[in-house]
């Protein structure tokens, strides 16, 4: 392919590239504004966050983050006078608002629940998915296409429709509002993605590797563990991140099936309220902390995104 011919249809001209680049960059910047705004709001004081016109330049404050992690009570000036001087910077910050820290908020717990349920279900769904994907890829399984389609079709149910019988089932089994219950549920939802994605990755590993190993005297299982698994590692990592992001982001099941002990962050964040309405800086702080891991993972995953979002149907 020649790059010097300026009029070639295949190679866009420099002007075309500049115009295309400018338009895409403008779109990218505009699309980032909402995210940047919520990030900035996390560092505002409550009055700054609801000022008009919206403040772009402001004095940064950690009040949102302090409010996110604490519960506070308003006190009389006399009571504030009687207190010993504040020990820490965050106590000082809270007292400047005529309040004292009453204790930690539930955000830490909810965040931890998201981590436990996310990693637990990811581990299980990738484990099950790896085994099933290998079997579907390498062996002649009767009705393989039907089974694969069945696995995929479990994703077509609206979550609320699934939640009705699961709610009743979990109530009977005592799994409502437990980490185990949520891990099992998210595993069941994610395993379809996991099987489909991993099957695509296994399909790409040449069979000759295993066959050579089998001739060398390995058993099927040994060949799978020692030859195929290492080759699958990239695929497994990418699939794991997809499963983790799904479990991390999930809302409907968490809303309907958890209320306290096992509640994850997504249904909790919108309920953060301050005095006289929603505490936007605290919500901004919570949203920032919650979205940050996903942003990092997305950047790590960028080469495999296409596969992941199409269940492996489209590959580069």
């Amino acid at each position, binding site marked *: 392919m020649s790059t010097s011919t300026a009029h070639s*249809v*295949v190679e866009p001209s420099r002007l*075309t590239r500049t115009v*295309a680049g400018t*338009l*895409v960059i403008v*779109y990218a910047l505009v*699309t980032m*504004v*909402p*995210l940047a705004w919520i990030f900035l709001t996390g560092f505002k004081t409550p009055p700054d966050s609801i000022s*008009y016109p*919206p403040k772009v330049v402001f004095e940064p404050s950690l009040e949102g983050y302090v409010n996110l992690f604490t519960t506070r009570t308003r006190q009389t000036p006399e009571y504030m006078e009687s207190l010993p001087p504040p020990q820490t910077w965050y106590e000082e910050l809270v007292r400047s608002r005529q309040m004292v820290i009453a204790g930690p908020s539930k955000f830490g717990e909810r965040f931890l629940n998201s981590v436990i349920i996310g990693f637990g279900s990811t581990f299980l769904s990738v484990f099950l998915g790896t*085994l*099933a994907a290998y*079997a579907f890829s390498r*062996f002649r*399984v009767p009705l393989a296409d039907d089974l694969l389609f069945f*696995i995929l079709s479990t994703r*077509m*149910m*609206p*979550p*609320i*429709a*699934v*939640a*009705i*019988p*699961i*709610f*009743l*089932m979990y109530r009977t089994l005592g799994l409502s509002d437990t980490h185990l219950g949520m891990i099992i*549920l998210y*595993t*069941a939802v994610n*395993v379809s993605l996991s099987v489909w994605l991993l099957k695509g990755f296994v399909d790409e590993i040449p069979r000759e590797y295993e066959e050579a190993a*089998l*001739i060398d005297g390995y*058993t099927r*299982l040994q060949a799978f563990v020692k030859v195929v698994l290492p080759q699958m590692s990239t695929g497994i990592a990418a699939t794991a991140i997809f499963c983790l992001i799904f479990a*991390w*982001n999930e*809302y*409907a099941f968490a809303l*309907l099936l958890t209320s306290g002990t096992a509640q994850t962050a*997504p249904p909790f964040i*919108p309920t953060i309220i301050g005095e006289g309405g*929603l505490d936007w800086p605290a*919500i901004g702080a919570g*949203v920032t902390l*919650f*979205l940050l891991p*996903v942003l990092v993972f*997305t950047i790590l995953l960028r080469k495999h995104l*296409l596969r992941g*979002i*199409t269940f492996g149907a*489209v590959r*580069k």
Partner: protein
Amino acid sequence: MSQTQISQRAADRLARSTPPGIARKVRGLSDKAIAWLFIAPTIVLLLAINVFPLIWTVYLSFTDYRANRLNRAVEWVGLRNYERVLTDADIWHNMLVTAHFLFWTMFFQVLIGFALAWLINKNFRGHGVWTTIILLPMMLSPAVVGNFWTFLYQPQIGLFNYVISFFTGADPSSFQMIGSVNLAPWAIVIVDTWMWTPYTMLICLAGLRSIPDYIYEAAEVDRAGPFRTFWSITLPMVMPFLMLAVLFRSIENFKMFDLVVELTSGGPGSVTELASINLKREAFEKWRTGLSSAFAIILFVTVFGAANIYVKALNTVKSR
């Protein structure tokens, strides 16, 4: 004794002459056993968490069961729940709201997504980085996105209203994106488009990149103009990809719950009450478990049926 020795020797000879393909089945577990051992856990899990509940839902849909009244006798009501769902004006209203949401989100996402992909495919310098940035919104939690967009949509202090008033001169407190009956259906379309346009973009980009250069070169040799090339080569070749993107997004948006519930919770009134939102109300607020099971089955059959018809159409386009 001697006979067994002979037969052993025979077995040895047989084993030596057996091709490795068959011999490996003798060592360790057979392939068939491994296949089932590997697939069974997944199938069992799905049977327990998806199929069994689905069958239970079907059963419940024929009863008047209410999940909040445990001691009440459950009565078999036949098809009455289905009849009630299908003749319920509110549910038909939900379906209209869902159709509006589905149509316009797909319309904008296909249009903008394709345009972006087309521009990115011009391979300007740094396109990789900008593509990754554009992709970020779709990986976020829809509920959390819905939640923080309510902040951007605040009547006076919200950034969205401020930006609109900055460019149009309208008073930022004169319109409410979420509070107004006319604007709320568009408010949810805007957020969904913001979040999911990258999805169509990414799949279209894969489609554009799958077109081999020689086809364009041949078109140039044949003196096809840029419009002709676009209509006769680019568009038809990207079409299967575009249709796949629309399929996946339509299924997701038909089920849409989290984003819209956090953004408008179906309001004002019920102008943004999508089918899933009403389903949640029927099932978990009014506790009409039987009726909502029938509703759920109808929704599932609709998605499943529509998806199957669509996949047939997709295959026709692909095979052309």
